[in-house]
């Protein structure tokens, strides 16, 4: 069976979608088709990939307009009557073809306060935690840093507020640290100010595209927003804190 892939070719200076008809067979994913096109028709096509198992987070792209992992998007789930568009992520600077420069994300991650555990619980320098307490943050640890959530988030994608807003991936990261039962650091103030959690308008697009099915909005962002409300907006909790002297 033949299918056509409309793949973005170009760099920051400009480019265009180019159509590549190619042979496809049962069980193929988009990345397979891109590889076939690369080996048979477009040897210079730039595409980033690594594991082909949905675990390295390298092969992020926009397939038929939706941010997805190329290696986890089965052709059998796509309508093949029309060309399948494969475009690079829009929220990051384009390097070439399907490859974008995601280094902004790494710089953002460095700005988030590090894990700061309480003093060890046992003389041998180890800690004790209850499984029930660690479960909540385990979900966030599944992240493969594909940055699809960053790409789909309209605050970055459409409004380009990269200098005011860290994006859903890093709210998830901050939540994993902030809700950790051993952590003693306080990140609430900076979540509101420098990291711009107030820009998120909870439209849940990040959750929708996350290949690890992390409930980014419900389990990370909204609980963090509630912590910001406790600290900044809620007069009652502020009063309680004053009374408690904390």
């Amino acid at each position, binding site marked *: 069976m033949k299918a056509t892939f409309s793949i973005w070719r170009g760099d920051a200076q400009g480019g265009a979608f180019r159509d590549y008809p190619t042979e496809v067979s049962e069980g193929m994913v988009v990345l397979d088709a891109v590889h076939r096109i690369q080996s048979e028709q477009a040897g210079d096509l730039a595409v980033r990939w690594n594991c082909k198992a949905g675990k390295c987070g390298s092969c992020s792209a926009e397939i038929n307009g939706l941010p997805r992992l190329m290696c986890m998007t089965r052709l059998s789930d796509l309508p093949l009557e029309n060309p399948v568009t494969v475009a690079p992520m829009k929220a990051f600077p384009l390097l070439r073809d399907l490859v974008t420069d995601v280094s902004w994300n790494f710089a953002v991650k460095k700005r988030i306060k590090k894990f700061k555990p309480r003093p060890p619980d046992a003389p041998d320098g180890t800690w004790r935690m209850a499984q029930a*307490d660690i479960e909540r943050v385990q979900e966030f640890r599944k992240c493969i840093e594909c940055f699809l959530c960053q790409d789909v988030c309209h605050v970055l994608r459409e409004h380009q507020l990269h200098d005011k807003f860290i994006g859903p991936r890093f709210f998830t990261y901050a939540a994993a640290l902030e809700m950790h039962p051993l952590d003693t650091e306080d990140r609430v103030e900076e979540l509101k100010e420098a990291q711009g959690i107030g820009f998120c308008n909870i439209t849940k697009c990040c959750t929708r595209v996350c290949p690890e099915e992390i409930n980014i909005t419900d389990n990370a962002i909204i609980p963090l927003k509630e912590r910001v409300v406790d600290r900044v907006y809620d007069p009652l909790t502020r009063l309680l804190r004053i009374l408690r002297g904390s």
Partner: protein
Amino acid sequence: MPSPGEALTQIGFGRTARRDRWWATPLSTFLVLGSFVVYTTWASLQGDHYAYGNYLSPFYSPLLFGEPPHAWFGPKPGWWPAWLIFSPALFILWAPGGFRLTCYYYRGAYYKAFWADPPSCAVGEPRSSYRGEASLPLILQNAHRYFLYLALPFLVVLAHDVWEGMWFAGPDGRERFGIGVGTLVLAANVVLLGGYALGCHSLRHLVGGALDRLSGAPARKLAYDCVSCLNRRHMGWAWTSLFGVALTDLYVRLCSMGVIHDWRIL
């Protein structure tokens, strides 16, 4: 949809390379939520047909001033200005209305459906400026937990209305236990509203989510688990309870207007 030669970065209202019916969900939200707002406004301004025997419409409960036997403080107050429209719903409906308006789920849904911010995921927006919930007016959404405090007592009042809905006046004037279709309608409404309000994100935070270690607080852990369980389906509860409360009002209204007959089961 991009065609060959089209620039990659071109954005604009409704522009997307998505092939699915991305507009279907925001459009249904727009239609359903819009119709609900129109119906609720209409019904709450009627000031009439909100009770039928022992049944009381949830839009009018608690009934502070109005028809006996449901009214808490008697009939329409004498000091009410004659030029001002009187409807008992206006005293109370702002509270559950504000609760829904500031609900995290609805916010995300109506920002898309009513304000195209964004129209749908990965679809271009009509405006380039964006302030989100970081400044006025939307920063006020952070008051959601206060609407939660106001909304929770409503559940108790509405549950009491179900109880009232089980006592029917007999021909001798004495009240007898019974169950009518209306009783079941009122009861289903409370269950749906309970599932919605008790799965609230703010409640989830307040009962336990604010703590990093819940294992030392078994009661709060249990509460957190229960709220989280409802919270996982918060969207479902939000919509079913929305339909529920409007249909309950409609049921009582139609019975009171004599359009339909309440069928007694017991």
